[in-house]
């Protein structure tokens, strides 16, 4: 049976120590957290969990440096996603030799990487689109993008950067030949073993 300490006055419940003392929270005889004049310290190996509910976007968080919405950090997550290549006019298809991606999400910021190697030329037409793990923000101050850290086996004009589409979960691979900045047409520029790596940075909706 749980032991309940009921603070039945308007002053609430106070746990105090003298000026040199500490207040410890223990579980099974082991320290979990210590309160002293410096602050609150968790014991080595112990975690602080701010939970969220599955199927519910709302989450607990921690305010850092203020109590406005802009000070709330309510999400941290890392994982994988599978980058796909499509065309904006005709989605098209290709086989993949390598198709792997990872991400870290800290609050609204997503930092991701991916490596794609096609097994054949891509049949998509229009602008070349690469899928993302999260939907991008639609605000005018959130311009995300990606740098190309590796590319090989492009027919011509391989990608120089990726521009992230606002309010969407993809970016456009584009090239810059110092005269023209333009989209890449998958069917025109890809072939067997066309490959690229991206380092992606953007904010989410």
């Amino acid at each position, binding site marked *: 049976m749980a032991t309940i300490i009921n603070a039945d006055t308007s002053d609430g419940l106070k746990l105090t120590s003298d000026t040199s003392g500490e207040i410890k929270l223990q579980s099974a005889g082991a320290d979990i957290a210590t309160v002293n004049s410096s602050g609150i310290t968790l014991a080595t190996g112990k975690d602080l969990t701010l939970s969220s509910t599955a199927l519910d*976007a709302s989450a607990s968080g921690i305010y850092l440096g203020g109590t406005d919405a802009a000070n709330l950090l309510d999400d941290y997550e890392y994982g*994988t996603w599978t980058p796909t290549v499509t065309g904006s006019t005709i989605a098209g298809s290709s086989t993949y030799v390598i198709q792997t991606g990872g991400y870290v999400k800290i609050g609204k910021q997503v930092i991701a990487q991916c490596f794609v190697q096609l097994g054949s030329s891509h049949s998509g037409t229009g602008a070349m689109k690469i*899928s993302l*793990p999260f939907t991008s923000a639609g605000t005018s101050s959130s311009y995300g993008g990606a740098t190309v850290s590796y590319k090989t086996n492009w027919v011509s004009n391989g990608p120089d950067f990726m*521009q992230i589409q606002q309010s*969407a979960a*993809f970016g456009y691979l584009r090239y810059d030949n110092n005269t023209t900045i333009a989209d890449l047409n998958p069917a025109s520029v890809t072939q067997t073993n066309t490959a690229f790596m991206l380092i992606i940075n953007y904010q989410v*909706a």
Partner: protein
Amino acid sequence: MTIEKTKTIDKIEVVGDYKHIQVRERTDIVEDGNVLSSTYHRWVIAPGQDYSNEHADVQAMCKQFHTQEVIDAYTTFLAEQQALENA
């Protein structure tokens, strides 16, 4: 001792102006009922995108939110954005 790998859709979110459906799949490695490790895998379903191979719960969300009106608005938005970028 039994070790098994389980996959579950543990989060489905409706995000943004055009009701993108964000899906998170959790993979657990479980030993005798205790989770030893877990990882996440993510993907997003845009309005108008085929969702027929998705989990039934994801399909239900797509069916509810990806109405023809939303699909048309998203298609128009993308066309306008691309025209601006290529101008």
